[in-house]
């Protein structure tokens, strides 16, 4: 069902069609010289985080929202980098004036995580010990390491307590980790299309992606940059596989069906169907913009995430220390991070006596649905944030009155 005027699915936020954007944004860089101890046992002595902010931080610094990105995300979540930019940031559908995360009300911070390939210190950065790129020697990051680095960024931005930490997929894992590791530093945590840990099937998908990259002759054991090369085929395959798992069967059927690229079967082994063409195109685009070592690192961070492991695999006990209000959202056709996985988080939070709200949104887009401004999802997220704001205001009145 589509809206006749806009051609958009009717359940999408009608405001989305209008050009309401945060406009031109400029990434900023924060440099840290305090060593960061990592879960792996290694330490990152010096690092940089690249980030963007949208909206204004209020006087009491109580309206700040942290956006945590997923596997292939980065700091550029909303707006445009230049007038010529054809595409806005990756979550522009939900971040902007009047959108789910309303930049007229909130100060939004979005960063590129450590180990990334969009400006923050990562495999493509120079290792000060060798004077060469880190490449595969860059420490494998854990979600808790990211959260620690994000907390330091918050310190530097003068944000004692986030109004909310919000993330989809791997980003949702960061929101959960925030609530566990820094219970006093966030009022709300929104874990969207996420999971308390990956299943074997999910790890298996990641492993196939990694094998595709590692076995590409151009990978050179991760030192491809020194060879002036990169594992294009491997990255392409990894992305194609990933992409299939981010879409739903119904969504792909609706989008591509069995449509042919040229109208006839070719009877050779080149592209016949539109879906093949689409996947190749996606894979190629991705392989030319994303670093292979970062891809490996991000998938490992996903695989390793299992906060309950520190608490006898009892998620409720693990979350007992959290103080935030939680919003958990899942999407009906998401099979990579299925609603049942979100319900595990919800059930653990209920067992732990936490304040949690949960919705399963009907959406055909599969895992990718979390990127779309689907009406009930937008309303739930904005309602959650508005409520947190009211409470933050009440709390500050009490403090001031006291």
């Amino acid at each position: 069902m589509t809206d006749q005027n806009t051609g958009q699915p009717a359940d999408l936020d009608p405001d989305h069609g209008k050009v309401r954007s945060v406009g031109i944004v400029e990434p900023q860089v924060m440099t840290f010289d305090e060593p960061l101890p990592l879960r792996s046992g290694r330490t990152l002595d010096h690092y940089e985080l690249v980030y963007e902010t949208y909206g204004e931080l209020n006087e009491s610094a109580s309206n700040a929202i942290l956006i945590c990105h997923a596997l292939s995300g980065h700091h550029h979540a909303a707006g445009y980098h230049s007038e010529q930019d054809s595409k806005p940031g990756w979550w522009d559908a939900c971040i902007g004036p009047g959108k789910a995360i309303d930049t007229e009300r909130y100060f939004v911070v979005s960063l590129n995580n450590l180990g990334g390939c969009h400006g923050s210190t990562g495999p493509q950065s120079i290792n000060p010990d060798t004077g060469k790129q880190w490449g595969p020697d860059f420490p494998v990051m854990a979600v808790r390491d990211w959260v620690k680095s994000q907390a330091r960024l918050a310190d530097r931005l003068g944000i004692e307590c986030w109004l909310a930490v919000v993330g989809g997929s791997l980003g949702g894992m960061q929101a959960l980790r925030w609530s566990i590791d820094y219970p006093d530093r966030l009022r709300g945590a929104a874990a969207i299309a996420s999971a308390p840990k990956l299943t074997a099937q999910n790890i298996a998908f990641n492993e196939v992606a990694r094998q595709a990259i590692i076995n590409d002759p151009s990978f050179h054991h991760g030192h491809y940059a020194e060879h002036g090369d990169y594992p294009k085929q491997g990255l392409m395959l990894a992305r194609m596989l990933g992409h299939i798992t981010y879409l739903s069967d119904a969504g792909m059927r609706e989008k591509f069906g069995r449509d042919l690229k040229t109208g006839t079967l070719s009877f050779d082994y080149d592209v016949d169907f539109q879906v093949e063409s689409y996947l190749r195109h996606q894979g190629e685009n991705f392989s030319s913009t994303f670093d292979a070592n970062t891809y490996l690192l991000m998938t490992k961070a996903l695989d390793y995430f299992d906060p309950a492991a520190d608490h006898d695999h009892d998620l409720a006990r693990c979350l007992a220390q959290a103080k935030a209000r939680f919003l958990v959202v899942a999407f009906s056709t998401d099979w990579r991070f299925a609603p049942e996985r979100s319900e595990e988080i919800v059930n653990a939070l209920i067992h732990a006596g936490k304040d949690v709200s949960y919705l399963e949104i009907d959406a055909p887009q599969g895992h990718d649905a979390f990127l779309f401004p689907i009406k009930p999802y937008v309303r739930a997220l904005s309602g959650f944030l508005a409520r947190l704001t009211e409470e933050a205001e009440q709390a500050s009145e009490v403090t001031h009155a006291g």
Partner: protein
Amino acid sequence: MRADLEIIADWIPAGSRVLDLGCGDGTLLSWLRQHRNVDGLGVEINQDSIIRCIEKGVPVVQKNLDTGLTNFGDKSFDVVIMSQSLQQMKAPHKTLNEMLRIGREAIVTFPNFGYWNTRRYLFFLGRMPMSKILPYSWFDTPNIHLCTCRDFERLCRDQKARIRQSTVLDSQHQKRRAIRLLPNLLGEIAIYHVDKPHTATAQGAA
């Protein structure tokens, strides 16, 4: 607030942990949170209602009440409420049992099918009764398991549940003295407060 909700609110001790099954837009829980310092959680299936709960600051989770209660721990709530939904369950007896497993006490409200006007409708018109609180045609109604006060009391007896208190409201949603004499005839909405004495005493050990 609806009259039946006002009565329920009176039965809930301040500071208790309350689970409201089929909480709608969260009116009751919101009131209980504000006035009784109750720690509440709603369960609802209607997404519009869920969003209104979130906007009110009432924690609410989307679950199917017929299948989704198994994950709640034994005696994990002080009071479990189900207002005007029991008759919509696939297996009301199992739902009641689940409510008394999850909560130390349960409060149930339902439209009393023994109400005189319902009986009149069936008797004189010979058709399935319809009214303001039973507005659906027989073939398209969510109310698949209607019962009378007497039926519900029998169910409680069968399940060894104790009725702590009960009341009925008439069509004006008033709690009149006269209807106390003939609740199953004069009450349009029934409200029951039940528990399971032998499990309630075991709570100290839990």
